[in-house]
């Protein structure tokens, strides 16, 4: 009895000590850093006159996924205080690798990133290209599902926009940007079309927005009746495109033929009623009449439905043409095939008759 009590006490003591020790270390480390970095007026004036804010307090990591970490867990190249050189940029793969002991979540996304346009730019020595922390945030990293995260659905466009400013401005006023702002759950942000870690230049065949893949990308949402019916948008646009010459040629690998974004725009997609829309009836001559497409296009390009389905009665005269040819083909071929079979039947009869004689 006494023995077991003793063991329990010892165990408890060891556990407490360990807890204190680690807590103490963390506090010490933080305190050491915040001695300087904790002062709001502690800034660095750069050669070009810009000011770099290096203000960090004990609360900087609070609430983030790295809440339990301390400064030197990431800034591990700081070994003396005050540090003489500017610490290197943080390398997330220090912890986030397969089989790490910290238990840091790891996926192949980091490998995909190195293949992507951003990763390649980094490898090529472009210092402005983004590393993990440029999108995911530095001290306040939150899970993607958390609305406050820099890479959450609602905020990712803004994050991308820090570098891709003009595109962001165009996107923000487009129908997708507006819908995203309104909080429509299906509205796509940058990553909806471009992918997340696997972002490639649109001229790269691997890209999700490569000319021959655009329609596939748009069809993820725009071919879904479940999604489109909610907002009163037709879901057959993708199917009619694929049956059109544009769609077929695109499928056979033509990169010059129109895909969805050639006519509807890329980041500035707007509903056709919008006078700024590329597919507004008044803008269609300009849209179709691009130098590499149909130069000299007139207003007649807008007379008649563009995404027309000849199998539907709404197509009007096109439907009637298709119907006429359908019955003409069936009727003619039926008559011809019947004649062929009768001919063969007659020949067979004659042969049998001759044999009988």
């Amino acid at each position: 009895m006494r023995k077991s009590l003793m063991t329990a006490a010892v165990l408890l003591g060891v556990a407490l000590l360990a807890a204190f020790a680690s807590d103490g270390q963390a506090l010490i480390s933080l305190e050491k850093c915040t001695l300087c970095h904790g002062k709001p007026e502690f800034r660095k004036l750069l050669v070009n006159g810009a000011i770099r804010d290096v203000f960090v307090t004990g609360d900087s990591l609070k609430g983030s996924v790295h809440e339990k970490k301390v400064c030197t867990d990431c800034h591990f190249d700081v070994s003396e205080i005050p540090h003489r050189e500017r610490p290197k940029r943080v390398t997330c793969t220090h912890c986030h690798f397969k089989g790490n002991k910290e238990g840091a979540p790891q996926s192949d996304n980091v490998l995909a990133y190195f293949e992507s346009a951003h990763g390649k730019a980094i490898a090529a020595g472009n210092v402005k290209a983004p590393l993990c922390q440029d999108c995911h945030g530095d001290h306040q990293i939150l899970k993607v599902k958390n609305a406050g995260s820099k890479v959450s659905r609602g905020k990712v466009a803004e994050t991308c926009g820090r570098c891709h400013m003009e595109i962001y401005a165009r996107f923000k006023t487009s129908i997708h940007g507006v819908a995203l702002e309104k909080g429509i759950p299906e509205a796509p942000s940058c990553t909806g079309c471009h992918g997340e870690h696997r972002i490639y230049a649109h001229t790269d065949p691997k890209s999700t927005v490569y000319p021959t893949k655009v329609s596939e990308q748009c069809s993820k949402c725009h071919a879904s009746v479940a999604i489109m019916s909610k907002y009163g948008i037709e879901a057959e646009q993708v199917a009619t495109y694929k049956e059109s010459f544009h769609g077929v040629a695109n499928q056979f690998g033509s990169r010059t033929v129109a895909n969805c974004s050639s006519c509807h725009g890329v980041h500035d997609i707007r509903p056709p009623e919008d006078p700024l829309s590329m597919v507004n009836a008044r803008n269609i001559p300009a849209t179709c009449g691009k130098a590499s497409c149909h130069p000299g296009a007139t207003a007649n390009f807008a007379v008649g439905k563009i995404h027309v389905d000849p199998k539907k009665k709404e197509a009007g005269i096109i439907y009637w043409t298709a119907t006429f040819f359908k019955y003409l083909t069936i009727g003619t071929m039926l008559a011809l095939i019947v004649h062929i079979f009768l001919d063969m039947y007659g020949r067979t009869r004659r042969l049998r008759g001759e044999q009988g004689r």
Partner: protein
Amino acid sequence: MPEKDRKDPVTGHIEKEVENALTEGLPELPPEEAEALKEKVRRRVREEMAKEAARLAREQRTREKKRQDEEMGEKEEKFERFNRNFRFQHMVLFSSVILLVLTGMPLKFPDFVLSRFLIALWGGIQNSTIVHRIAAGMLIYFMVHHFIYTILTRDGRRDFLLMIPGLQDAKDIRKNIRNFLGKSPDKPSFGRFSYIEKFDYWAVYWGCVIMIGSGLFLWFETEVMRFLPKYAVDMAHEMHSDEALLATLAIVIWHFYNVHFNPDRFPGTLLWWHGQLTEHEMKEEHPLEYEEIMSRRGKESPEVADR
């Protein structure tokens, strides 16, 4: 038995040789056994020789028959059905149609297994559309050529008039179908063009008008849409696509049956190349035309004799 007489010296010679070989080869066997063995060998040799003789005779007969047939064929009068000009038109037409189908159908059926291959054959869609337009140019040329041929040549004018369908064709169809079904023993006797050929001709006419017309709309869509709304071009697109299918099916099923796969013709005829029909074919397929030619000759020949 002249055959036997002719062969005897050889047979005798071989038999003597066999006999000698046998006597030389079997000295130490008892005479009865040796005799039995000899008899066996003799029989076998005779059998083989008889077989060989029969084979030679068969070959000789087939050779002679073939030669006779050829002589007959050469003697049989040939009638020129299609003149050189018309054959050339047909060659332009079918070359262009084959190219048009090969480059056009993949666009109508992009998911068909061969479509990707057929487009890749030309090095991609950019090139296959150019080939399609070249072939379209050939078809347009054919159409213009045929128009001029119809108007300016005597054969063209005569054939065009004979191509016009009439009441007789309806009667022929009825008669032919009754014959197929065994309800009447007599077959319709056709003139220069049977209703089948008339159908082919007018089908090509209709097809060319629709395909060239709608094809030009699609080729020059920007120019067309200067005057017509977009739905006119969409309509042309629909017509082009649907009529293409109808024409292809009609050619592949109907025309191919009539010129390639029907038992009289299988596996095809070289009529499109030499343009000639034999007297037998003439009597069989175009009896009225044959009679007409013969009666015309009958009228002409006295004049010839008078000269």
